[in-house]
């Protein structure tokens, strides 16, 4: 039961949240499913690595790799899948808490939370960047081999 409660359910929630967001970003058909699966994979990696900044980096790299591969498989830009699948990881709570500390006047806590949030955002961006660059190289090499 703990496996279901700790791992499967959150991944399912992440999957459903991503599918719901495809309606908002006007994504249709197979791409909706890809977004959902991407969100689930990302969240799984994130909780397996204990929700640290490094976990965010690894999760973003996993999502990036997945959406680059799916972009080749179903022939669509990776932007949409990436945008939606990253949503659950995105530091929304951090920004909210940081700003509420700021309004409260708790500058120490505000700075601490703000820096952590920026770190998470940078880790996500770096993760996406890594898988983007690697996939570019790999796919270019494969095309060179085919020719």
């Amino acid at each position, binding site marked *: 039961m703990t496996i279901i409660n700790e791992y499967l*359910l*959150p991944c399912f*929630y992440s999957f459903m949240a991503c599918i719901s967001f495809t309606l908002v970003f006007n994504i249709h058909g197979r791409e909706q499913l890809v977004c959902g699966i991407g969100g689930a994979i990302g*969240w799984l990696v994130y909780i397996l690595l204990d929700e640290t900044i490094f976990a965010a980096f690894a999760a973003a790299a996993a999502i990036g790799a997945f959406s680059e591969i799916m972009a080749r498989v179903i022939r669509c830009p990776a932007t949409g899948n990436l945008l939606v699948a990253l949503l659950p990881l995105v*530091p929304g*709570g951090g920004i909210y808490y940081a700003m509420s500390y700021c*309004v409260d006047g708790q500058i120490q806590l505000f700075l601490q939370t703000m820096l952590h949030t920026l770190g998470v955002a940078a880790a996500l961006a770096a993760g996406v960047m890594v898988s983007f660059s690697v996939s570019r190289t790999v796919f270019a090499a494969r095309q060179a081999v085919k020719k």
Partner: protein
Amino acid sequence: MDYEKLVNLATDLGCRLMASGAEIYRVEDSVSRVLTAYGVESPEIFALPSCLIVSINTPDGRPVTRMRRIGPHGTDIEELDIYNAICRELCADRPEVGEALEMLTLIPAKHRSFKPGMILCGYAAATTFFTLLFGGGLFDAVSSMICGAAVGLCLMFGSKWMGRNSFFRTVVCSAVAAFLALLLSRFGLGRDVDTVTIGVLMLLVPGVALTNAMREILAGDIYSGLSRTAEAILTAGAIALGVAAGIALDMTF
């Protein structure tokens, strides 16, 4: 070849890509590919989130430049897919420039979009599952579904009475979210108000904007990255203001 028309075509395509939410490097890359496919040597393209400048030198040495301002816009992945496909088609087939311009004007008819009711369901379901994901219980989820639907309504239909200013709109939406979450918890719906509020605010919070900003900085588009960061901070400020207003409103009851 009519280079003025060619520049118009490329700028139009770039603008539409940008307005559908493409990244800066994708816009610059697409415009440059189209121009190169039509035989322009080393076109110069510079894109910012709010502006696109395209400049080419014709073979007889005459510079042709076009600049377009890009207004506030959302994200529409369907549109992005279509314009991306068009860009590939132009590069591969190189139809006459006039024909290509006509192709661009025909696109809005092809464009699918969801019904407003469906989008509203999307908002409500997204907030529900975000609240569950962040550790909320069943009642929290129901509460955040109601709040999410309310915020979705404000986002979709509120522009009539709130104006087009996104700062003010974010303030109002987050005030609605915080106030409703507190109000519902008073009626026994939702125990963990913080989780509900964060789940609902995921619709507004500039997490995506901040991550995209970082991606653009890493990709080397420093100006765009910085302006997007500023936008994200502004939105975060608006949310904080709105939530404070919502809590204050709840105190008065």
